[in-house]
């Protein structure tokens, strides 16, 4: 059993969610480290020496071209092999917000047809606006390792903050495979737990998809931000009572538990 779980939090200019990701892992008992993409590119750091890989949110390279595109292009050009090895060894990989966008641009999500091909995109929100709000989400945990600490069907609330979060699958077939494999593990719902339109689905995502786990269950991409509500006090409605721990907390517990048990 492994005591010390080492987490690589990938950064570059414009990623900006790394601080709360770092703190969330740290407060879960892991040993996180922020790694600038440059250091992986020039070989000062190696992906394989970490147990968990986290792609934080933000605006990597400003998101000027398209959310996550630059980071993904740079990784594809020099680090794809390392990344594939990491994923295929079964280690946990998670990306939230910009991290999700990057995972999709890298072809790690959904990855149901041709290996690591582009099978989806996160298009501009239908509202044509940046949206920062708290959303209700339904967890359909499947065998996604990050969700093991949730009840199946649980409704949680997490913050979102993005302008490109509309999940668009390449075609019907891809969507069907996602659904059939139970990979659409996190969905936008209304306050009653039912599928609903804007603003409950804040970006117009196909089938209300908020988060997708790969078939193997070790790569999770999610638009909302679990790392921002590690403790109850950053839930947007905590002053009204309820809640014990933060609703984002189980994502980290789940990943850690998996890493400790598996290695």
């Amino acid at each position, binding site marked *: 059993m492994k005591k010390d779980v080492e987490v690589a939090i990938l950064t570059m200019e414009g990623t900006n969610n790394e601080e709360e990701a770092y703190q969330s892992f740290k407060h879960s008992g892991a040993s996180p480290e922020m790694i600038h993409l440059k250091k992986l590119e020039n070989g000062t750091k190696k992906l394989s020496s970490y147990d968990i890989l986290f792609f934080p949110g933000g605006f990597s390279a400003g998101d000027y071209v398209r959310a996550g595109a630059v980071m993904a292009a740079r990784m594809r050009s020099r680090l794809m092999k390392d990344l594939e090895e990491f994923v295929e060894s079964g280690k946990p990989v998670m990306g939230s917000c910009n991290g999700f966008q990057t995972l999709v641009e890298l072809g790690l999500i959904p990855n149901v047809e041709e290996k690591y091909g582009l099978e989806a995109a996160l298009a501009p929100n239908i509202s044509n606006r940046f*949206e920062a709000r708290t959303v209700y989400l339904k967890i359909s945990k499947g065998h996604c390792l990050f969700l093991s600490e949730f009840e199946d069907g649980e409704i949680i609330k997490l913050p979102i903050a993005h302008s490109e979060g509309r999940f668009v699958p390449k075609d019907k077939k891809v969507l069907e495979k996602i659904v059939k494999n139970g990979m659409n593990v996190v969905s936008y719902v209304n306050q009653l737990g039912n599928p609903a339109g804007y603003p409950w689905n804040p970006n117009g995502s196909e089938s209300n998809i908020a988060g997708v786990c790969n078939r193997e269950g070790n790569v999770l991409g999610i638009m909302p931000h679990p790392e921002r509500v590690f403790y109850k006090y950053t839930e947007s409605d905590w002053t009204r009572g309820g809640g014990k721990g933060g609703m984002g907390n189980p994502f980290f517990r789940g990943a850690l538990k998996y890493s400790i048990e598996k290695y």
Partner: protein
Amino acid sequence: MIEKGALNEVPMFGKRSEELSHISERMHLGLSVEEMSRMQVYFENEGRNPSDVEVQAIAQAWSEHCSYKSSKIHLKKYIFGIGKEKVVAEGDAGLVSLDDETAIAFKMESHNHPSAIEPYGGAATGVGGILRDIVSMGAQPIAVTDVLYFGTKKIKGFPSPKFIEGGVIAGIRDYGNRVGIPTVSGGIVYSEFFSPNVLVNVGCVGVVEKKRIRSSAISKPGIKLIIAGGKTGRDGIHGVNMASAVMESGEEDISTVQLGSPITKEPLIHAVLEANERGLVYALKDLGGGGLSSVVGEMLQSGGMGGRVLLDRVPLKESNMKPWEIWISESQERMLLAVEEEKVGEVLEIMEDWDITAEVIGESEEGKRLRIFFAGERVLDLDTDFMTSPVLYERPSSIKERRIVQVLPKNPTDFGKILMGMISDKNVRTREYVVRQYDHTVRGSTVIGPFTGIVGREGPSDASVIRPDWNKESGVAITHGSNPFYSQIDPYMGGKAAVDETVRNLISVGAEPLGFSDCLNSGNPEKPEIMGEFIEMLKGLHESAYDLNLPFVSGNVSFYNEAGKRRIPTFPTILGVGKVDTISNAISPDFKGTDRSIYLVGIPTTDMGGSLYYRRLKIDGGRVPYSDPKTLKRRGWNLLRAIRSGKVSSVHDISEGGIATAISEMTIGSGIGALLDLSPLGLRADFAMFSEPQSGWIVEVKKDREREFEEILGEDSMYLGQTQEGSFEVVRGEEKLVSVGLDLILRNWKRGYL
């Protein structure tokens, strides 16, 4: 000495005043004849003509924007020095103490002129600039704030208010979101006053370990100067001179327009803070108005040093820039680090790790001379004291005699309709159409955000609370106060009301106020009546802060917000910070349960000048509400005690629209209504409901805690009614005044926003 007859010499020797003012005009210096002749005398004593670099450098340092020459005398008298013992340090931003180890750095600043010309870039670079001020103190920014004043009328020759508004908001959004600091607090005020002089006041709050606070003074020779971040270009040249003059038209001086580059800034913040964290930084300052010239001059002068700079070393965006352009360029995203020689290598390595351009450009030296070289030639050789000490003006001032006419509107009949009108008023209704475009949860430390309550139907909150350290329980509360409508009628009372609102908002979330930053907006100070208003405002600020014993730790003055005959009222925007000792005690304004007692703290009056009620009735006149800081202190701190000891379940301060509006807002985030009886107030019903008493709050007290609450607040609290299901009702004895459903309130407040 610079050789006589050098290529860039500015011939001043023996010139007459007309010729001097001609030089000032031709070189865009913005200096008066007196100032030019003062310069002339200096160089006559040096026995030579100045170089263009020198003249430009002096003009920057002596601009209103950099030197505060019209306001300094008054600021010293009224603003500096209050609550001194609470100030941990001052510099580009001011600091107060959060706990034994940590200080809070904060500042608010205006970016009015740039935003009026190019709203997107103006507002974006405003956010960039205020962030740099916080980082300059060695502090980690934890929140960005913005208080915006938009016009409502299209003025010929200027862009439409809609265009300006859209641009400003997009600029703040695109910059703030990209640097990853949450934009959590602010305000938006719409009024004809601000056509075409839009005001963009931006603030930033940060935290720093006390032992890591950096000053900007260099008081040792041999300290290396490193410029880091963005490259230097022709952009922004003469920005400070523009901010120190009246606008002529909407398409001025294009060379000063910049858009900012948040993804240069984002890693720069990390790198500078990392270097500071590792103890590698001796002194630090950001490059803002006046560029290198102003920064190098001030860093050396404040530590009593001289120094040298090699301009060829400055990384440039475009080749063939003239030395004076490099020296005064206001290109964004740059910081100047002063570093001891043996630590330079390590600092440059950190910069390299973060992919940031950085270069050693000079060093400090014994003595008081600053010398600048370019292509091997000495292009500037000045005494730093002379350069950084402008003439201070005590400009003539006059106070307009105001006759106060108390006006009595007709007794209204449909109170519900008036109330719904207020809830949906442009200046009251939801700000979600703006604020939801700002990331207010990034960094995962937002304990109270701009909107609170049931997810999906949140209402407005009074102040935001950030938990800067996940390992501690303490929180930093952040809010603002300003009321240009009061200030327009009475700048003195307007000043006091701004402080009052700031304090009210902080108390409302359960925070103890710690200090203020004051962003002062005004017109042309060369006009006596404006100087008069300015001084009145300062007196108001002074009296309130003095009685509260709370310092103004930082601030800024923006004069010349005029165009043609149109000008803004003279008024402050106050940024206030407070301390929430235990975040679990923080509180929000949404009602928490039914059948609980509602108390009023504060006393409605007949002073309705500038109130939302009068404005909607188009009544011009009346006395503005009176703010008494001693009362504010008593009520506020007692209420804080009641909150901290767990007697209270929600609090909202009374501001625009009075008691009725405040209570309506408390129903929004909660879906819980209220039943009020105005009988104990003994005023006309419209005055009771809609007057805007200062130092006032609505409080929902927890069940069975009423006695204890009343004991703490004493005569300052008055029982008004109960929370209830379904609707908001107001009665006076038997008389029914208002009865509205909660959905109607919500819908009016949302005005179509989902």
